[in-house]
């Protein structure tokens, strides 16, 4: 007889709860700090509250708006670069067999496995010679190096899941390569593209060193604006900035889940979770 699934042990629940707290609790003092300037030990909550940090953030000096704007532009450019370079590359890697494939794949994923600091130190030297390129573009280039491995891996995996059967069916019906891509593969690829894009934008948002190097410190994205404060230890302002930094991430998350929901309503998707749901439905017959 099959053993019925027991509910997970108290230890597991305890472990997960503890970990959730570990992840969640640091945000509490962050929020509090952004509303106070003075908060000594052992006060659990500060005695004096103040909106100064937030006021500063949105003053001419705070540059919250500028930072958000620049971060967004760079992230979008990085995303475009990922789409242009990443999707065709992932497609080839997923659908073709050729000599040296392992090597090519390794090179594309290399920034994941080799600390990229050293490469960026070399690029620093190199970046200066590329100063005819627009700042936004050159920063996006640096971000592209860091994000491309994630994007290619995500898309590659989805291409593998899709397999070649739909494409073959479409080809047998006379569809051209471009039509196959836009009519067949793209819709099936969409969930992975959404996930990949989410990752790319989030990673791009959080880059400090590459942004700094490639723009020579002139591209004021949010991390570049925050950094001097983070190292200056002005807890209140750093906290306010950190929370501000959180806004685009949350918006992105929201957009991502929204788009995923719209998409999964439209069609059956091969992502892991959906497979699970589908299998369950199947087994319910």
């Amino acid at each position, binding site marked *: 007889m099959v053993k019925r699934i027991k509910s997970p042990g108290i230890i597991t629940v305890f472990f997960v709860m503890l970990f959730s707290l570990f992840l969640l609790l640091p945000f509490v003092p962050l929020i509090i700090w952004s509303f106070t300037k003075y908060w000594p030990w052992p006060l659990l909550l500060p005695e004096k509250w103040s909106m*100064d940090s937030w006021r500063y953030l949105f*003053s001419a000096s705070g540059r919250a708006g500028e930072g958000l704007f620049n971060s967004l532009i760079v992230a979008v450019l990085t995303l475009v670069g990922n789409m242009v370079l990443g999707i065709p590359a992932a497609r080839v890697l997923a659908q073709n067999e050729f000599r040296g494939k392992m090597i090519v794949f390794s090179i594309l994923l290399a920034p994941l496995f080799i600390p990229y600091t050293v490469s960026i130190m070399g690029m620093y030297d190199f970046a200066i010679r590329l*100063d005819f390129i627009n700042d936004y573009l050159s920063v996006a280039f640096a971000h592209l190096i860091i994000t491309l491995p994630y994007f290619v891996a995500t898309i590659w995996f989805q291409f593998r899941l899709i397999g070649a059967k739909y494409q073959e069916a479409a080809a047998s019906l006379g569809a051209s390569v471009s039509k196959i891509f836009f009519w067949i593969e793209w819709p099936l690829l969409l969930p992975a593209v959404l996930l990949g894009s989410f990752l790319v934008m989030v990673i791009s948002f959080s880059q400090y060193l590459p942004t700094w190097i490639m723009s020579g*410190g002139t591209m004021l994205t949010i991390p570049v604006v925050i950094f001097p404060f983070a190292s200056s230890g*002005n807890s209140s302002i750093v906290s306010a900035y950190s929370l501000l930094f959180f806004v685009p991430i949350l918006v992105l998350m929201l957009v991502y889940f929204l788009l995923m929901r719209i998409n999964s309503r439209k069609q059956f998707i091969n992502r892991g979770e959906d497979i699970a749901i589908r299998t369950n439905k199947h087994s319910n017959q």
Partner: protein
Amino acid sequence: MKKLSMCLAIFLLFLSGCSAGTKNNSQRVGENSLKSDWKEITASAKGSKVNFFMWGGDEGINRYIDEWVAPQLKDQYNIELKRYPMDAVEFINKLKTEKRANKKSGEMDVIWINGENFKTAKQEKLLLGPFTSKLPNFQQYVDTQSDDINYDFGFPTEGYEAPWGKVQFVFAYDSNKISNPPKSIDELQAWVKQNPGKFTYPAPPDFTGSAFIRHVLHEKSKDYNAYLSKYDEALLKGEADQVWNVLNEMKPSLWREGKSYPQSLSQLEQLYKNGEVWMTMGYDEANASNLIKTGEFPASTKTFVLDKGTLSNTHFLGIPYNAPNPDGAMTLINFLLSPSTQMKKMEIEYWGENMSLSVERLSDKDRDIVESIDRGSATISQEELSSHRIPEIGAEYVQWLERGWMENVANK
């Protein structure tokens, strides 16, 4: 695969070609500006944009630049000022790399530097050249003969940088917890022993921590003035052990038993704000007042100087060799040296820092205003500060001490 290796080869050729080109010397864009007279300079600066690269970690300073200087500059000279927050070490490194890559037009117009940074910049020819003599306000209001204008950490400025402000090292303490602050390194040592865990200093090469150990040197040295002349490693080697002894004796009673030090002044201030330590320090006599005003420091915070004096230095503004707008840069620097701009800087509302101008050279009216400026509750009087001032020593000594501290104190 053949194709790939070809591409790589081409790329490498490209790279080596670039590094070969580095060796040629370039002509300076800004040289023309240095030859022009003031009228031409201001005229050509009209309607331009100036990029000001400066440390960006202080809210008050940022507000001073963005909310007061920038609009005024726009009004009076029609120049757009853009502040970029960056540490001096970082933009000096950037300049070095740009120099090596032979980049003729950079991004920085004005940079905020002093000490080691200035020395590196000047030695490696990262600066435009002597320009201070061009500035009317420099000529009129700055004491061009004084040592703290002509030497920056013992290194001659020679007009390559213009003085923006003067600061003095002070210790800050919470008067609720300490009634009678120590007045010398010896007393400090004794105090630390009595109050274990309540004192520490930022780990050198942090700027403040580095300055703290120089105070130890100052007090233990037989002849501090010897350090003000030419670099002599033997001199320092002879006396350094005493410095390490003092610091190592202090160590067991420091915060975290000296096993770890705050990485920066900010971390030390954080410890002070949270009450982990009872004393902090800083190369800015008005900083404590400032932080009381913004509510970050307890109002009971007071500052003190050592009986034998504390270090003081001047910080400067420079123009990089590849500044895209040297005319605008000079106009901005001149504006920053005007009495009204400097007096605004003294106000605790923004920065609270002492001005680089000579008070004697100001008009009577301005002098009255300066005297009436409220510099905050924790700032000690100008007379007491001036009478406890000691000069900075050469940047080589500073670096030697920093490395020595890591070897002899941190890793012991």
